[in-house]
Structures are given as C-alpha cells and as structure tokens.
C-alpha cells in the first residue's frame, strides 16, 4: 500500500497516457509527443524553481509576470534600443533574478507572507510590462533566439534539452547538496532548523532567487520559441506551475516534495492540455476541465497524506 502512496502519480500518468492514446491515435506520434514537451517547456522550467520555494514554505504567484517582464525589458532593448542579442540575454536574467531577489528579501527578511508579497510584485510586474512595451508586440528577434527556439541537437529540440537539464540540475541540488537539505529542514521545521545552525532567512531568500533564475530561463525559452514578445505572455503560468508541483506530490505545508514528482506533474498537465486540444474540446470548456483535474489532484493528495498519517 505504501508503494501505491508513493508511486501513485506515476501510475496515474501511465493510465492517462494509455487512456488518451486510445481516445485518439494521434497522441502517440513522435510529432505530437515532441509538441507536448515543447508546449510544457516554459512552465516545466518554472516548476523546478517553484518546487524549491514550496518545499521551503514559500509560495510565488508572480512567476508569470516575471517571465513577461524579463522578456519585455530584453526585447524592448533589442528592438527599440538596438542592443545585440547577448545584451538581451543578460537583461533577461538580470530582470528575473532581481525580481526573485525582491520577492525573497520581502518574504525572508521583512517576514511578509510570501503569497501577498508575490501577489503585489505580480501586479507591479504586469503593470511594468505594459508600461515598457506600451501594449505592443515585438517580433523579428536576432538569429540567436530563432536558433535556440527552433533548433535541435540531433533528434532533440534545444528547448527540450534545456528543460531536461533544468530538471536534472534541480534534482541534483535539491536531493544531493547541503543547500537542498537546508531547504527541506527550513520547510519541515524552521525553528528546529534555526537552532541547528541553519540560516533560515538566507535559505528562503535563495529559494526565491532560484525561482527567479528559472523564470529567466523560461522567459528565454518562451521568447525564443515564439520569436516574439507579447504583453500577455506568461499568463496563467503561476497557476500551471504550482498545480504541477502539487500534483507531483509536493505538499503546500512544506518540507516535502521531489523534482521527479514535479516532472510527472508537469507531464500530466501537459498531456491533459494536449488531449483536450486533440479531442477538439472547446477552449472555454478546457479551463473547466483543467480546474476540475487540479481540484481532484489536490483532493487525492490531501486524502493520501491523511491516510498515511493514520497508518502509524
């Protein structure tokens, strides 16, 4: 039974894939599968960072705004300011890391509730996106971005490779480094972590900065794939990323969760989205279905952890 509790989501994912491929034969084509991975790449990268944050008892709803703002600044600099591609690249990360830093400083050192902090920065961020871009789209970016967004290394699209690297890096740090242990300790019991000599505020701050870094990477990937900037980019990313993380088994109360679980959560979300499209479900109904699935996933997660408590 323990086996089922731990690996339940993998089973769900497998069943989901089987179910969808029965419903529509298009699903299992390599073209479509590649599509699924491409579509989930940006959110997937963000979800890696968000996993760190949620395990450390923080929450960040500003990730979508972060992605959009980083892109807005970089693309405006390149298209309007005439800056070369590498300045754009640096700006993406400069903006996204600063965004994360602000969130982290407020949440960790000013002790503001992270949900409210990031709600505020999300609003400010979106406002800045509109202010900087004046509501305009920009396209026609330097070659670098096109090659990144549409190119491949052998059979694997560069974007997918980046996403996989992000997951591998995230996993290695979270599961195998001293910093990763500190994240789990701070999330599991911040008071005990403090007494054990762990710098709680510093660890929390770093988690938000990490979220910022992964947002930067996601912004780069998304901008490259679209070959453009649009003010509404990243909308709904915060919801999708947090949902994927929670579906993947990371508890919102903190102290628990894995990158592997997040990967499965991201893929489950991706497959569901893909299936809804393939099956021709109307766009409006899609939201209802997605929301219902998230609801179910969180409910199952909650029942699962309550059952596990009762076992011992």
């Amino acid at each position, binding site marked *: 039974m323990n086996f089922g509790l731990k690996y339940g989501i993998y089973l769900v994912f497998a069943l989901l894939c089987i179910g969808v491929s029965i419903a529509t034969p298009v699903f299992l084509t390599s073209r479509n599968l590649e599509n699924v991975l491409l579509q989930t790449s940006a959110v997937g990268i963000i979800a890696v960072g968000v996993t760190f944050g949620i395990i450390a008892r923080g929450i960040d709803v500003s990730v979508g705004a972060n992605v959009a703002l980083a892109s807005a600044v970089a693309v405006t600099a390149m298209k309007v300011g005439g800056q070369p591609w590498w300045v754009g690249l640096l700006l993406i990360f400069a903006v996204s890391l600063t965004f994360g830093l602000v969130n982290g400083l407020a949440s960790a050192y000013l002790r503001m509730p992270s949900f409210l902090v990031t709600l505020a920065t999300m609003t400010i961020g979106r406002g800045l996106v509109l202010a900087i871009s004046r509501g305009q789209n920009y396209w026609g970016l330097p070659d670098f971005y096109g090659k990144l967004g549409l190119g491949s290394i052998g059979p694997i699209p560069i974007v997918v490779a980046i996403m996989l690297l992000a997951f591998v890096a995230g996993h290695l740090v979270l599961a*195998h480094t*001293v910093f990763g*242990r500190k994240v789990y300790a701070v999330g599991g*019991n911040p008071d005990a972590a403090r*007494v054990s000599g762990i710098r709680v505020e510093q660890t929390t701050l770093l988690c938000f900065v990490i979220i910022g870094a992964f947002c930067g990477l996601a912004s780069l990937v998304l901008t490259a794939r679209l070959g453009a900037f649009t003010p509404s980019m990243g909308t709904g990313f915060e919801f999708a990323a947090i949902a994927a993380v929670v579906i993947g088994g990371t508890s919102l109360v903190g*102290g628990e969760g894995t990158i592997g679980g997040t990967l499965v959560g991201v893929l489950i979300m991706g497959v569901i989205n893909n299936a809804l499209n393939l099956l021709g479900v109307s766009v409006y109904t899609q939201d209802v279905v997605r929301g219902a699935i998230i609801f179910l996933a969180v409910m199952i997660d909650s029942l699962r952890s309550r059952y596990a408590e009762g076992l011992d």
Partner: protein
Amino acid sequence: MDRPGAGVLESLPDGLPADVGAEPFLEAQGICKSYPGVQALKDVGITIRRGEVHALVGENGAGKSTLVNVLAGVVKPDAGVIRVRGRVVKIESPKQAAECGIAVVHQELSLFANLDVATNLYLTTLDEGSAFVVRDRRLRAEARAILDQVGLCHISPTRRLGALTLAEQQLVEIGRALVKDVDLLVLDEPTSSLAEREIETLFRIIRDLKSRGISVIFVSHRLEEVFLICDRVTVIRDGMHVETTDTGSVTHAELVRLILGRQLSEMYQAPESREFGEELLPPKLSDVSFELRRGEILGIGGLLGSGRTELVRAIFGLAKLEAGAFYLRSRQTRIGSPDQAIRMGIGYITEDRHREGLVLEKPVKDNVVMASLRAVATTLGWVLPSREMAAAKRQRESLNIVTPSLARKVKFLSGGNQQKVVLGKWLETGPEIFLLDDPTRGIDVGTKAEFYRIIQGLAGKGAGIILISSELQELVAICHRILVLRTGKFVGEFVGKEINAADILMAMTGGR
C-alpha cells in the same frame, strides 16, 4: 449536564448498598489496541475509584498514552469494555468522553497560540448554550477565576497564549479541563514543564478535586511525585497490565523494578570530585555573571520566569543581549547566531524537542546530521550518503537509539529516543560546551539514567555543561555546582557539599 448513569447508584454484586467511596467511577476491562506492526495494549484493565488519585506509570512505549487516548475518546480500542458508574459506555470521540465526565490534559499541548488565554480556556464550551454572541466581559471574569485557581495570578486573560512560557501554557491547559464539571481528570505528564512551586499548586488543585469526590489519573515518569500525591498506582509494561497497588505498600525501588521488569542498580552516579580545567565561559550579563569550567556540570535552578532559558538562549545566539559580554577560553567573543555558536563549539538541547529540536517528518539520519551538514559533504556541498549513514549509525550505537531503521521518520520514535536523536545531532558537531534545557523532560526512567551517564561521560572528557532542570532531584544529583536565578537575577550559588534540595528551593522561591 445529563450524563449516563448520573444519579444512579448500583448495588454491589453481593447485595450490600454501594459505598460512594468504594464503587468505582470507571472500570475498563480487556482493552486491546494494535497498530500495524505493534500491539500497543493487550487485555489491559484499570479501575478508578471515586475521589482517588490513581497513578499510571510505565516506560515510554509501554502503552500509557494509548490507554489515556482510549479514555479520552481519541483512539478506538479493538476490544474491551468501559463502564462508567457501572454502566457500559462507548467512548468514541472526545465529546462522548466529556459527556461521561472525563476530561483529559494531554502531554502535548493543544492550545491555540494565536488566541488569547480566555478564549483558549473556553473554546470547547463556546458552542454550548444559546448565546450567539460571546460575552467578553463575563468570559474574562470567569477566566480570571480559573487562572487564579491554577496559580497564574499574574497572567491577564487577554494575553495572547503564544506569549506565555511553556510552563504557563501547561497550567492554562490544566485550567481548561477544569472549566466544565468533571468527574475524572486525566493528567498526562502534567508536571513535565513545571517547577516546584507550580507543582505544589497543581497538587493543591488535585487534593481539592479529591475532596470533592472527583477522581484523577496521574500519568507520570516522576515517581517521587506519584508517592506524594497518588493513592494507588498501576504499572503498564509492553502493553500489558503488570500490577495495581497502593502507593503506601510499595517502595520506589520496587516500583522501578516493576516498570522496567529488571533491576536498576543506580539511577545516578555521584559525581567524582575533580580538578577542573581552564575557564571556558564566563559570560557577564548585566545582572548575571558566571563562569563555566571544563569538565564541570553547572546547574541552573529557578522557577518559571526566572530567566534560565533566556540566559541559555543568549549564549547560543538566539536572544539579543542589551548589555553583556562573553569570554570563550579567555577571549571576548560575540555570539550573534546559532551557526556562530556551533562553530565556537557550543551545542544546545532546547526544552521543547518537537518545536525546536527535530524535523519530525524527516528520517532519523537526516535529523542526526542537521547541524553538521558541512561535515558529511564535499567542499562543494555535495552530500555523501555514506558519511551521512556513518554518522547516523555512530550515534545510534553510542546512544543506543531504538529504531527499526535509520530511515524511519523521527516522529515515530518514542520521546526518549527522539531526545537521543537530538543529542546525537549535537554530538556530531563535537561541542565543548553543552547547553541542556530540561533534557530529560517527558522521558522514561530507563532512558533518563542513560542520559545522566552520557552527560557525566561528556563532562569527564572535558566538556563544560550547563544544565537547566525543573527537577530539583536531577540538579542535586549530578551537578558539581548550582546557580540559582530568581526573576532574572542571580541569587545564590551552591558548590559541592553545599548542594541540597532544601536550601536551593529556598533560594529559588525567595526563601519564604
């Protein structure tokens, strides 16, 4: 309140009219409860007479808490019958337990830190009665009465509960049980966070309840208290009932033997007199100055609010000092944070292991290395599982930590073993100074003895130890020197032969 059996007197089987004192209030028979992998209670029975104070003793893991939880309606037994006033009852929820007249004060506090004291006292009764609006003034007045009854005259009912110390919170928890009319009060380790004077208040409350015909079950590891206040004692071992006897008919040593099932030759070793080494730590606070020498076990005695814990937290970098200096090995140092303290070779076992000592959801091995993560990783920060495992095994062996696996979540270990994990965590950092705040609170007899041996062993190897304890016996038995604090000021020092419980208590309580 209408309760089953209220007002009904049953005749005894042999036809004699019931004697109020002799008819049991509660009888439990054949109680069985098992969890996956362990049978917590096997055919346990207990009889509580009216107006008696009945002790329930046994090692950690023996089944006392399970039995308490059965009576409290928190746990449903697999088998067994419970009779209240002769009538069979089902106690399957705390509400049903309350309807039977049973109130339980659990070992782990279940109060709300974010609410005020008055609300905490009355939260469980607020939904009774027809009033929709909470009558603040009346609530506060009644709360005032209860607070005075439990000796918390200096606490205002509007104070936020989280602002109170652990001992004060425990007294509020006891007060909460007294809010409603109660026939049986179950106290699970009620004195674990209390100092002498508060314990006296508690005993006064218990005697008062007794005189009103209310029964008390007193679950405790502190056997000297059992002999002081209880009429009878029931011993549970390995989930089974071992013996029930009058406290007057059994000696302390016999009781210990019944609990352990084996002889314990000596609980405490008398400390050898020793030449102490160089001065390790003479911190000077504005009112309090003292020194700690290598190899010395320095006890700090004092009542609730005397400043003992604050002192120790300041040494560890967890509390800011308005004025004062620390000299470590004759060099002045500032200790601004726990990680600084750890690097200077100081370790700190806090008074509440669940709140500040352990990450309960993490395995034993994770907790053991939590303060020494750098030591089990490469320079770049990569954790080496082999080193982590080695550290965990090392501590398990040296401290005799009982756990089926080092990967088991630490929350499943018994209190004594959990505390050993905390100690193991600090031993891994190799400190020269140990700050121990009530380290044996809520721990069974056998593990306590182990702890004393370990503490004395550490001192023997040259560590300096500061020991805070609410148990006077503990301080008197193993400390080389005892400082007494009262309301934040240093009021007395007792060295070697001067140490005796009576004088220390006098100093702690202001020599009344």
